Structure formats: C-alpha cells, structure tokens
C-alpha cells in the first residue's frame, strides 16, 4: 500500500465524518462557480443595467472566499484534532513527521479536489437553471448557456489555492513532540471555565450601548452610527460569547435552588463547557448570520421599495420643460409617435407650474391650478377638487407628509403676486413625488392662478414657471423603450456636467422601475445563494463537532442511563445540549440585525418613506424556519448515532 493509497482509503472510509464538510465545500464551490459563470457571461459583460448587480456578485465572491478560508481552517483543524489518536499510533509505528505531513496534505487535497470537481460539475449542471432565473429577473430576452475556460479557471484556481494554503497551515497544528499526547488524544479537557467579570460587563455594556444607539438613530447621526456601530456590536458579540454568557451561567450555578433542579445541573454545565470551547466559532457564525440577515433584509426591503414605486410615482412618463424650451413641441410629438409605435394607449396632460414665495414659511412654493389638477385626476382616476377663490389645498409628496399636511390649517400670502390664501387640508392622493415638484406644492383655484403674474424673486418670467407634460400609460411597465433618445441626451448632459442648462427633463417611470427592480432582485438572489452557503457551513461545523465528541458523549449517556435516566429524559438532555448550539448564535444574530434594521428604517423613512417591518419579519421567520428544519435534521442524525448502545 503506497502512501497515496493509504490517504485515499482514509478519506473513503471516514466518509461519514467528512459528509457534512463535503456538503458545505461542494455547495460553496458550486455557488462560487455559478457566480463566475454569470460574471464572465459574454452578454452580461456588456449590459449596462447589470453593472451594479455584477459588482455585487464580485463582492459576494470575495466574502464567500474569505468565509470559506475561515470555515475550512476551522474544520480541517477540528478534523486533525479528532484524529490525533490515529496520528499518534502511526508515529508510534515509526512514521516520520514528513510522511505524516504528506499524508495529511494528500488527504486534504483529495477532499479539496473532489469537492472542487463535484462543485463545478453541479454548478455547470445547474447553471442553465440559474441563468433562466437571472434572465427572468433582468428581463433579458435570452441568456444562453455558454462554455468558456474563464469561470472554470477562476473557480479551480481559487479553491485549489485555498485548500493548499489551508492544508499547509494546518499541518503545523499537529504537535508531534509528544507522541503520547497524540495517542491520548483530544479528550475534551473541561478546564474550569474561565472568564473575567470585567470583560463580561464590558461586552454587555457594548451591546447595550450599540442597541440603544441603533434604536435611537436619527437622520442626522445615521452616518456616524453606520461607522461606529459595527465595531461596537462586533466586539460586544465576541465578548458576549467568551465571557458574558459564562457569567450568566455562573450566576445560575451559584444559585443551587435554580441550578440543582432536575436536568438543569447537567444541561447548564454541558452548555457552559461547550460554549467556552466553541466561543469563537459561535461568534463567527453569529456575525456571518447577522451579515446574511442584513443582506437579505436590506435587499428585500429594496424590492419593497420597487413594489411601492408605482404608488409613489403614479405618472408614467414625465416631460418637464421650462417656459423657454425650444424643443418642447418636437419632443412631445416624438414621444407620442413612439408610444403609438409601441402600441401603447395613453392620455396626455399638460400642467403649468408657477413658483412663488410663501409669506408664512418664506420658502418657495410650487403652484398648479385646479383645472390642470382635475385633468390629471381624471386620467389617473383620482378624486376631483373644486376650489373657491382664496382657498387652496396642499399637495402631498409622500404618504407621511399626507398625514401631516391634512391636519394643517394655514393662512398665507404668495408674496410676489400678493395673493392671499387659506389652506386647510390636503389633496387625498400623491401626484408628484418630491423629486418632481419638491416638498412644497399647493393647488389653487383657477381665478387665483390667473392672478399669479409676478415671477418669483430672483427669477425672470420664464424661469419662474414651467410646463409638465404627463403621459399616463395604463401599461406603464412596458414603456421602458420610449424616449430613449431623450434619456441619452440627459445622460450626456450629466456626463458633461451641463445638466443645469438643459431646458427640459424627462423621466420614464417604467424604465426606472425595471432598472431598480431587476438590480435589487439580482442582488437579493446573489445574497440568498451566499447566505445559503454560510448557513450550510455553520450547520456542518456543529454537526462535525458533535460527531467528534460522539464517543465521549455516548459514554456519558450510558453512565446516565445506568444511573436510571430514562431514554425520554436522555432525549430531553440531548435537546438541551443541541438547542443552544443551534439557536444561541442565531438568536444573537437576530437581535443584532433587528437593531440594525431599526436604524435602517430611519434611512428608508428619509428617502422613500417606507416601512420595511413586514419584509424584516418575513425574512426572520423564513430563516428561523430553515434553522429549525436544520436543527431537526441534525438532531435526528445525532440521536441515531447515540442510540446504538442504549
């Protein structure tokens, strides 16, 4: 038997130990490969829509590789520790350290190579399916399967490097100076659980401070907090796992009335030892889960944003023109023409907007007439208004502002034209979002509108008023190809920095919507794939840890069984041993991301006046269900292994 054969057989015959690890590595290779397939796609490389999305994919790949570096290092070290007895025997039989190193190297490479090959294979098999998903998301006509050496080279290169680096590093963790210690093995040495009160309290304080800050985030301090909170909470979480939990358990242990109660004695001490031993692993896994929750939550809240987009932007095509725009007529005719070509029915409304300064707030106000609004309201199917002279209505720019404005009761004068107005309520619908007409919009009666003649202070007559052409297209999602030349002109102007002198502006809600929607959906998709890998890896690590301690646990449960603990009670004990491993990192991640979302909510209120609560709850429930499923799966396997002797 050559060394190579020996290594091969070791891997094959330990396949049960390696199973979970294999699964995690294969899936990560697979996801990585699919990302790279998308990244190098010949069509996708040129699509301008996808630029952001593919930058996201690149970042996701980097995070994935970094995570795998950690995961592989931890796992491989745990494997080697678990097999230290075997290595001890080999060395006692006269194996050199050099040979042992080669053996370990070979084994890891065999595993690495197999998972790379299988991962790429699965990735390639499923990539057509993923392309279909992405095609749907991006609304591209076709995204063909292609064959290129690039994604293969990238995946193989990255992961083989990863495996080789890991195996070289991990060889050094085998200590060969005392063979006897290798043979005696890594029996769990439950050294008295050590912790420091100072660190524990510090950790708790950090977490509480972090949470309080996050909960009280306001628009103004959001940026500072975004820089400050992650390190605070990260350190807090770390200390929480290494020390704070131990202090809690210590407090429980001190109180014998609580501690010496049925299985608590066993489960509390078991949990204490296990947490101490794996504190760092739990820390990493909870931080990664937090990241995954945040990614999924943020992205799905972005897609809510796009769902609400139409509500916030009820106008399909908006052409804003200043009064002196020479192209006005030509552009409008062109747009009408294009819409006809596309076969889309539409209604065109023209709205004249005047600007004045309010005497009440000394801020500029944008004013539209009752007649224009009613025309528009008919097209949109909104309620009509009828105003008397001297009476006006607020026009809300968001739902939040609608609530506030409908309670206002204001007397004001439009300073330049000396028109007195009484405003006592708001129009019940949102017509122009803040980006179209600003945050100060009112509707006045036609009579009053005519009386506004003077231009706003500091402006001439043409600057003070503008025309807005509004095309209402019932099939507003289909308008993304309309007005492409106008878009191009605006983009060029932006690129040259001359956008201020452009006499018109054109907005296509359908295009914006499809752009936002597909970008976010794609990011969400990428995030979900990565989160799935993290999730699988964390679970496989727990499984592996359980598996390596199995013999010892078995012996312990046998002792307990002999002492008269029923099988049902043993099942309960196993539950209590497993639950913290699965759900403590998860719970911390939940709390962390919950507070992160609370501050994110502030951000969203700021830009789009949007509640992300529903999405967040959905995400959390979804992830929790998955976690529960995984818990039952692993518990089932674990109990099956334990049962053998009792």
């Amino acid at each position, binding site marked *: 038997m050559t060394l190579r054969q020996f290594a091969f057989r070791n891997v094959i015959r330990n396949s049960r130990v390696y199973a979970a690890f294999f699964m995690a590595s294969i899936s990560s290779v697979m996801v990585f490969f699919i990302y790279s397939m998308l990244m190098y796609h010949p069509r996708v490389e040129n699509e301008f829509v996808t630029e952001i999305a593919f930058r996201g994919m690149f970042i996701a790949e980097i995070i994935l590789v970094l995570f795998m570096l950690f995961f592989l290092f931890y796992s491989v070290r745990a494997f080697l520790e678990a097999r230290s007895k075997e290595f001890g025997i080999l060395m006692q039989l006269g194996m050199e350290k050099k040979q042992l190193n080669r053996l370990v190297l070979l084994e890891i490479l065999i595993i690495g190579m197999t998972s790379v090959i299988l991962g790429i294979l699965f990735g390639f098999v499923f990539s057509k399916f993923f392309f279909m998903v992405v095609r749907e998301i991006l609304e591209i006509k076709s995204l063909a399967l292609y064959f290129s050496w690039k994604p293969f080279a990238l995946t193989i290169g990255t992961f083989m490097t990863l495996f080789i680096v890991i195996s070289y590093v991990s060889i050094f963790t085998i200590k060969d100076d005392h063979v006897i210690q290798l043979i005696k093995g890594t029996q*769990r*040495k*439950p*050294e*008295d659980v050590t912790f420091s009160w100072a660190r524990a309290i510090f950790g708790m304080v950090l977490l509480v401070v972090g949470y309080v800050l996050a909960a009280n985030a306001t628009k103004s301090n959001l940026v500072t907090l975004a820089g400050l909170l992650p390190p605070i909470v990260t350190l807090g979480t770390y200390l929480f796992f290494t020390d704070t939990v131990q202090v809690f358990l210590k407090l429980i242990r001190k109180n*014998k*009335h609580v501690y*010496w*109660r*049925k*299985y*608590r*004695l*066993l489960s509390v*001490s*078991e949990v*204490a*030892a296990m947490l101490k031993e794996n504190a760092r692993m739990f820390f990493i896994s909870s931080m990664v889960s937090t990241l995954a929750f945040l990614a999924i939550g943020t992205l799905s809240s972005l897609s809510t944003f796009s769902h609400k987009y139409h509500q916030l932007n009820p106008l399909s095509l908006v052409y804003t023109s200043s009064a002196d725009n020479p192209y006005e007529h030509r552009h409008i005719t062109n747009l009408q023409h294009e819409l006809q070509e596309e076969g889309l029915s539409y209604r065109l409304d023209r709205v004249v907007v005047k600007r004045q300064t309010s005497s009440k707030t000394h801020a500029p106000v944008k004013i539209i007439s009752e007649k224009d609004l009613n025309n528009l309201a008919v097209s949109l199917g909104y309620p009509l208004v009828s105003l008397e002279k001297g009476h006006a209505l607020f026009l809300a720019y968001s739902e939040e502002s609608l609530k506030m404005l409908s309670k206002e009761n204001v007397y004001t004068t439009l300073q330049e034209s000396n028109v007195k107005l009484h405003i006592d309520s708001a129009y019940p619908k949102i017509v122009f979002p803040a980006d179209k007409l600003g945050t100060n919009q009112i509707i006045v009666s036609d009579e009053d509108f005519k009386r506004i003649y003077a231009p706003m202070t500091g402006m001439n007559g043409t600057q003070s008023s503008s025309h807005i052409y509004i095309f209402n297209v019932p099939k507003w999602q289909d308008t993304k190809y309309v007005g492409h030349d106008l878009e191009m002109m605006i983009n060029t102007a932006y690129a040259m920095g001359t956008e201020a002198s452009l006499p018109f502006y054109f907005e296509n809600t359908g295009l914006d919507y499809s752009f936002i929607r597909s970008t976010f959906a794609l990011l969400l998709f990428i995030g979900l794939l990565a989160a799935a890998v993290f999730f699988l890896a964390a679970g496989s690590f727990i499984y592996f840890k359980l598996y390596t301690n199995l013999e010892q646990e078995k*012996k*312990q449960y046998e*002792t307990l*069984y*002999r*002492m*008269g*603990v*029923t*099988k*049902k*009670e043993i099942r309960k004990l196993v539950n209590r041993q497993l639950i913290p491993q699965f759900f403590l990192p998860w719970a911390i991640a939940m709390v962390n991301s919950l507070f992160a979302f609370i501050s994110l909510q502030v951000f969203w209120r700021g830009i789009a006046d949007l509640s992300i609560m529903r999405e967040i709850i959905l995400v959390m429930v979804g992830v929790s269900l998955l976690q529960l499923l995984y818990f039952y799966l692993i518990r089932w396997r674990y109990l099956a292994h334990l049962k053998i002797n009792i």
Partner: protein
Amino acid sequence: MALLKIEDVTKVYEGKVTHRALNQFSFEVEKGEFLAIMGPSGSGKTTLLNLISTIDRPTSGVIELDGVNPHDLNKTELAYFRRKELGFIFQDFNLLPMLNVEENMVLPLTLDGMNVEEMQRRIDVLAQELDLTKILEKRPNEISGGQAQKTAIGRALIHRPTLILADEPTGNLDSKSTKDVLELLGRINQRENATIVMVTHDPIAASYCDRVLFIKDGEFFNEIYKDNQRQTFFQGILNVLSLLGGNVGDFTSVRLP
C-alpha cells in the same frame, strides 16, 4: 430473607457465534452483605453485573431484588427502579467531566427532584464521611484517582440505594488508594449496613469482603467466607484462584506430585 436472589439465570448471546455467557447460575445475597464475585476474563462476571443492574435481560431465570423482579417492569419503571434502588461504582469512575465533585455526587438526587436543603445536608454528611470536603469545588480532571473513585462512591450512596454494584472499583487505582477505597466500602458496609456486590480481579480487593463467589465459564465454581484473619482469607482466595484460571491451572498441574 435474601435481598438479592438469582435463580437459574442463563444468558445466551445470539450472533454469528452463539455464546452462552451464563449458565443456570444461582446465588443469593443477604441484606448487609459485602460480596465479591471473582473469575477469569470472559467468565461472565460483567454479564452477571449487567443483569443485576437491569441494563441487560436474562435469557431465562429469575432475578429478584427485595421481592421485585425488575425485568417485569417496563422501561420507564425500570429506569426509576435503577434510580431508586441501585448505586453504581465503575472501574473508570465515569464521573461527568463538566460537573465538579459536589455536583457529580448530587446528580442522582437532582434527577429525582429532591429539595435543595435536603440535598445539601446529605452532601455535607457524605463529604465528611468520604473526606472530600476540601475538594468539593474541584473538577474530576483536577483530582486523583482515589478521590475520583470516592466521589463516584459518594454518587452511588447519596440516594441510599438498596444495593450497591461495583465493577472493578480498584482496577484503576494505586495500592494506597485501593486500600482507602476498600476500607471505605467496608466501613459503609459495616456502619450503614449497606449491601454491596463487587466484581473484581484483585484478590486483595476481594479479601475485604464477607464472601467471595467464584465463577468460571458462566457457571458457579466455588465460594468462600471470610474468617477472622484477612491474611488467611486472602490465602484462601489465592488457592481457589490457582485452581480456577487457565494459565494458573497449568502451573498447578506442574506442582502436582
């Protein structure tokens, strides 16, 4: 009346090779007796102990403890039976590594849900008795083998079981600790009138008992009772052993005239 009654117990292990571990084995243990069971490896000692400790069922025959046949009970009742009536001492102590000495001892009581004051009282008395008061806060990996076995004895005694079963309790101990542990068992046997059944290889350990039962190939071989002198009892045990063991037997045939 006998506390433990073993009647015609037979245990056959089915498998590729059917193996009769015990064959119509019978004996009785009186209340307050300290009994040693000796025999060469593979003679069925451990099988016998497993049958008495109810984690294994006899193929045929009857085992009765204090008038109850535990093998008539269902699994849960059986577990409660073990929890209440039996105390175990193992060769490798089987202390739970994450519990300290005190917690290890109190474990059987917490499972029963006893109130804390009573548990604390029992621990105090027992720790005094076993000389463990100073190391109550220590963990099993921080104490010596003798102390660990004493802890295990404490664990076996704390719920005041009807019968204490010991499987090679001195197998992992040095001679000083062996002496300590055996004297302790003897003292408990004397003072508390506890009934102890101990399986052992060690003739010195056996010599602390009231009676030694010899078993060979799953069958009763011989038994001897303690006399006034431990020395002569020890010699007696050695004599039976020399008749008993495979290799020892070879020697004796050489010695024969």
